[in-house]
């Protein structure tokens, strides 16, 4: 996957801001976002949907949540 936002360890609203920055930069396609709290997971997913991106998958891997979003 080419576009990754690593927001682990950062508290809100930083993960959402980083995700929105990346969405603006790439415009469309797939982005994976790494976060490590449930709050960030919910906030990033909510922000993605509100920007018209689809949440494709949301996986828990150890201490990391891997969120993949896509826009056609």
């Amino acid at each position, binding site marked *: 996957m080419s576009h990754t936002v690593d927001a682990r*360890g950062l508290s809100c609203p930083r993960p959402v801001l980083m995700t929105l920055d990346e969405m603006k930069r790439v415009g469309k396609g797939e982005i994976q976002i790494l976060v490590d709290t449930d709050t960030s997971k919910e906030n990033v997913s909510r922000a993605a949907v509100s920007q018209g991106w689809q949440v494709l998958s949301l996986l828990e891997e150890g201490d990391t949540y891997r969120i993949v979003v896509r826009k056609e």
Partner: protein
Amino acid sequence: MSVQAASEYAVKSTVRMKNFFATRWGIIAVGGFIGVFAALLQKWGNPGNMGICVACMERDIAGAVGLHRAAVVQYMRPEIIGFVLGSLIAAHSFKEFRPRAGSAPIVRFVLGAFAMIGALVFLGCPWRALLRLAGGDGNAILGIAGLVGGIWIGAFFLKGGYNLGRSTKTHASVGWLLPLTMAGFLALMLISPQIEDQPQSGVLFYSVKGPGAQHAPLLISLVVGLAVGFLAQRSRFCTMGAFRDLLLFRQTHLLQGLLGLVVFAFIMNLVLGQFNPGFDKQPISHTMSLWNFGGMVLAGLSFALAGGCPGRQLFLAGEGDGDAAVFVLGMIVGAAFSHNFGMASSANGVGPHGVAAVVTGLLVCLFIGLTMRTKSAAA
């Protein structure tokens, strides 16, 4: 496409099933619960428009352990203890307890101290600002305007790349320290219970008159605190986040919870005969509009830079965030400074050094906000 749609649905539905409280109706219900029980706590003995006030209650705790000796505001508030322990229970029940620390603790301490100093110039945290509004206190409008103004400045810094740096996963005991401290406070209350008309019992100070002497029964305060802590951890309820997300992303999720709090507290105040509209002679408040506004600009900016309102910091501390715990300790120490050095307001208006403290705090916040920046995306 159908596979994608199905997986998206699966993701959405598991998220929803996992946490109802993170949904729109969930957050409104939590705000409503806080509003109703804040009004009831006032009915049961807490001070006027102060059924719940995180800043005032932490200030009373600072007094109870003798960090300041303002005789009228000394009481070990069980609500605060409940908030942290309720959040701890929720976090453990839902496997969300994540011990973490190391994201600029000294900055969080300083922000906590100045957040408290600003809040005590206005006389209330954001929750109390909303509860004062719901009780008819017009001065709260200035406080809320200041709060939004402070968060608005903070949003500028956030857009410019301001952040506190990354925390790292750490030992479970780091996350347990503040909850254990709160459990210790509760133990102290039981070992040194309040004695009628006595200003001290064992090591704890108790107000004989004034706001510190007004409180609901210990068990009721503790149980309501536990319930609020549990629900707020699940819903991520945050009054600072409500305005911040609106200003930064035009998102109204958290704001719905805040409105739930105001509406339900207002209705409950009407039911209980606690709604008294006006500006003068409102409980534990003053009418110096400029400083009601200015105090909350400082508080709002401090909360925005620290990533949460005082309540949210307690709930984060309960789910293992050691940096939020440092913010809480900063607030308690800030309350001691406020009362020891004449920075806190009273019904007569701002304290002799309140204005100087607000100006100093704003300069410190500007220094922090302008210097702690990461260029976009690099974080």
